[in-house]
């Protein structure tokens, strides 16, 4: 009996270690990290994440051995109040294991990359002490993400949902006292707050959905809720799904809450790759997929989800065209790709959405990390160039050079306090000087020669994202487009145009960054990154090339081995899903458009490469449209005008007038304090106390004084008068006795 149980459940009992492993890692770094070297801190963190990956693999093996039947592992009682009874249960089914593999797999590679990246980043920003903190946050993120994907009920999912939001906040604001160019400012903290607040708006929607769900179903448990879907009225399900969509829009950066994601690029690049491209932002897509039985039962909500996704995909893609910051382009690209996924799951093409989620995690992590490598390469080049020029250069250069040198000195042991104090002084000194921006593509160019490995990796990522055969992105994007063409033509056209823009802005980026002549001396002196950075990239590149094998379509009625593998695998959880067949028309259009877009980008940016100081050639031909793209269609300014400014005004009104003038000045000071003062000063003090109690007490005193003043007359000191008194007394007494 016992033996059969063990064989039946295999490695299921390891499930809690999905969360425990990263928690152990972060605790080790938290407690002993100050004594560990950077290598050990990185090793512990990566090993913790790697352990979570190993557990995910073992769970997947166990699951496939039991033919994909969902399994649960109850860890502890959690909430038992009234009718609500929730346990902390890990749900192991094909959907959650897929997410676990992506999160921990990509996460581990990014951990390894981050060892190399943060080693240099903390030195460029002159605070090596923060190396440990970064890995503590990163492990915390993995733990929270694991809670999110392994949840067996919506409340547990919400715990992870909030946890990853917190980690996102902490990591965006990692360099909280500076902006992205390491100048002293609160720009990074503002970006962190923006992300957190935008996510709060989304979480509010999620919470409302949760409340309605509990009201309607009386449970948060996935299976219980899904079983009762048809017993609950249509309107209620629509309300739940739409409120949930608000949460998805917040977390997965969809219109109208996407504005936080571009600003979130203030975080270190591994964070952008892990949290803001590969894993956390896909939580919304996962949530909709997880709630598939809810969404599938209401077509109205599905249409809205699909349209939100498709419009986001196109809208963000247009903005990406006009950006100059290498990470901002990728950020808008991420929003756009998340739009693809949301559109897919909105149309009910859950497998296509998940497939794109996986491949996107591969190639977008690759792109972001390569971009990080480019940025570091430029930092190194800049450092190098500044050193070479020395102090006899013209004034601004000299200042930058000086600043870099100071940083260089700090490599070699300056006391902690001095290092802490440094950024502000340094920033004040260099404020009027234009600071070199290693993320600006206008400062790049020609990196193909100086950073060949990064160049080829970036190319692979670009081709995968642009959807060129046979890279991973082609297969997943094609599957979404295929579904859209069959079910929802508006979405199909929006996504196709978005795909065109995708290929275009990626082409633009490649030409601007890697081709042509260096437009800045830093680019000319750029250096290739070390192996600790490139090796994880190579692995991601391999995944980006081969990721399509996960779910190949049937081509010409021929099912290659591995065709529809993911469809079948997820089918265990999502029910029977029909596997798509490659449609020559859809695939052809998207491929031709992608190639066309790359050709256009070559015409504009590749043939005559951008020169230093030259304005973007598209600006001339497109004019105000490009300005719109460059300025992100002024969405931030519009939000500022219609939401933030009125909100600030309202809060100022509430603070000054309602709270200050009405409550504080009038109600508290005048009404309460005034009444109290009147009662105490006039009624009690003046009348009751002064004229009542005081008067009585004083009167007693005055009376006694008067009596004693009178009596004192008798005590005149004349012995004879005393004797007379005695005599009179005797006469009185004797007289009384006689006459009695």
């Amino acid at each position, binding site marked *: 009996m016992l033996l059969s149980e063990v064989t039946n459940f295999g490695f299921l009992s390891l499930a809690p270690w999905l969360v425990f492993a990263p928690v152990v890692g972060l605790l080790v770094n938290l407690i002993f990290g100050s004594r560990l070297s950077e290598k050990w801190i990185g090793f512990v963190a990566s090993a913790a994440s790697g352990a979570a990956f190993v557990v995910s693999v073992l769970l997947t093996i166990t699951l496939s051995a039991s033919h994909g039947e969902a399994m649960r592992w109850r860890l502890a009682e959690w909430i038992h109040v009234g009718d609500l009874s929730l346990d902390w249960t890990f749900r192991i089914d094909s959907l959650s294991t897929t997410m676990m593999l992506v999160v921990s797999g990509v996460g581990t590679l990014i951990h390894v990359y981050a060892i190399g990246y943060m080693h240099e980043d903390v030195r460029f920003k002159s605070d090596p002490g923060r190396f440990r903190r970064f890995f503590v946050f990163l492990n915390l993120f993995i733990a929270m993400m694991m809670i999110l994907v392994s949840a067996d009920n919506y409340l547990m999912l919400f715990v992870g949902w909030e946890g990853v939001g917190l980690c996102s906040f902490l990591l965006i604001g990692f360099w909280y006292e500076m902006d992205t160019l390491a100048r002293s400012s609160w720009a990074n903290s503002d970006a962190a707050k923006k992300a957190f607040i935008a996510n709060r708006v989304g979480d509010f929607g999620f919470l409302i959905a949760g409340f309605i769900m509990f009201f309607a179903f009386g449970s948060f448990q996935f299976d219980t809720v899904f079983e009762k879907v048809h017993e609950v009225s249509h309107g209620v399900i629509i309300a739940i799904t739409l409120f949930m969509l608000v949460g998805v829009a917040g977390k997965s950066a969809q219109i109208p809450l996407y504005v936080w994601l571009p600003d979130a690029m203030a975080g270190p690049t591994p964070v952008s790759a892990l949290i803001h491209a590969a894993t956390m932002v896909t939580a919304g897509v996962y949530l909709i997929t997880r709630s598939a039985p809810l969404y599938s039962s209401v077509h109205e909500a599905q249409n809205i989800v699909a349209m939100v996704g498709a419009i986001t995909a196109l809208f963000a893609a247009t903005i990406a065209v006009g950006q100059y910051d290498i990470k901002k382009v990728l950020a808008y690209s991420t929003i756009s790709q998340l739009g693809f996924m949301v559109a897919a799951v909105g149309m009910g093409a859950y497998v296509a959405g998940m497939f794109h989620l996986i491949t996107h995690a591969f190639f977008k992590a690759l792109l972001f990390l390569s971009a990080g490598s480019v940025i570091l390469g430029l930092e190194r080049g800049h450092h190098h160039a500044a050193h070479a020029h020395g102090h006899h250069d013209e004034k601004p250069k000299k200042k930058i050079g000086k600043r870099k040198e100071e940083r260089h000195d700090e490599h070699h042991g300056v006391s902690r306090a001095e290092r802490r104090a440094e950024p502000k002084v340094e920033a004040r000194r260099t404020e009027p000087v234009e600071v070199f921006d290693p993320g600006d593509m206008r400062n790049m160019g020609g990196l193909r020669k100086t950073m060949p490995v990064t160049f080829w990796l970036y190319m692979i990522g670009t081709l995968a994202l642009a959807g060129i055969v046979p890279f991973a992105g082609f297969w997943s994007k094609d599957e979404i487009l295929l579904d859209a063409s069959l079910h929802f033509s508006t979405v199909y056209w929006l996504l196709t145009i978005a795909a065109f823009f995708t290929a275009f802005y990626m082409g633009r980026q490649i030409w601007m960054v890697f081709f042509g002549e260096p437009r800045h001396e830093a680019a000319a002196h750029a250096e290739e990154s070390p192996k600790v950075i490139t090796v994880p990239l190579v692995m991601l590149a391999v995944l980006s090339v081969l990721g399509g094998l996960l779910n190949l379509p049937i081509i010409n009625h021929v099912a290659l081995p591995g065709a529809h593998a993911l469809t079948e695998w997820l089918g265990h959880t999502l029910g029977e899903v029909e596997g798509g067949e490659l449609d020559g028309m859809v695939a052809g259009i998207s491929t031709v458009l992608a190639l066309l877009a790359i050709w256009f980008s070559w015409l504009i940016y590749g043939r005559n490469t951008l020169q230093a100081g030259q304005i973007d050639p598209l600006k001339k031909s497109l004019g105000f449209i490009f300005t719109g793209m460059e300025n992100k269609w002024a969405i931030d300014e519009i939000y500022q005008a219609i939401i933030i400014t009125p909100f600030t005004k309202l809060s100022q009104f509430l603070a000054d007038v309602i709270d200050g003038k009405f409550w504080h000045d009038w109600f508290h000071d005048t009404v309460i304090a005034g009444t109290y003062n009147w009662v105490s000063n006039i009624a009690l003090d003046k009348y009751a106390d002064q004229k009542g109690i005081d008067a009585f007490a004083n009167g007693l005193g005055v009376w006694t004084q008067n009596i004693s003043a009178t009596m004192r007359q008798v005590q005149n000191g*004349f012995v*004879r008068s005393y004797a007379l008194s005695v005599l009179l007394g005797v006469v009185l007494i004797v007289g009384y006795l006689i006459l009695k």
Partner: protein
Amino acid sequence: MIPINYYIILSAILFTIGVTGVLVRRNALIIFMSIELMLNAANLAIVAFSSVLESFSGQIFVFFVIAVAAAEVAVGLALIVEIFKSKRSIDVDQMSSLKG
């Protein structure tokens, strides 16, 4: 035999003279003498009653009074001498430092 009334009247007259002396005079010595007069007026009355009643207890009592009076005189005169030493006067009206 002289009637008792005469003794009592004499005693009363002497006592009254004593009281008047105490009240009217300011010289401490005179007051002292007046007090003696009052004491002896009382003694006289007691002795008279003792004789009439043929009881010796009254006469014994008077012996004690005379003895005590002698002691009192000793103390009183000593006080007066001390007062005179400090004040250079035995005017009782000047001895008023304890008045309220």
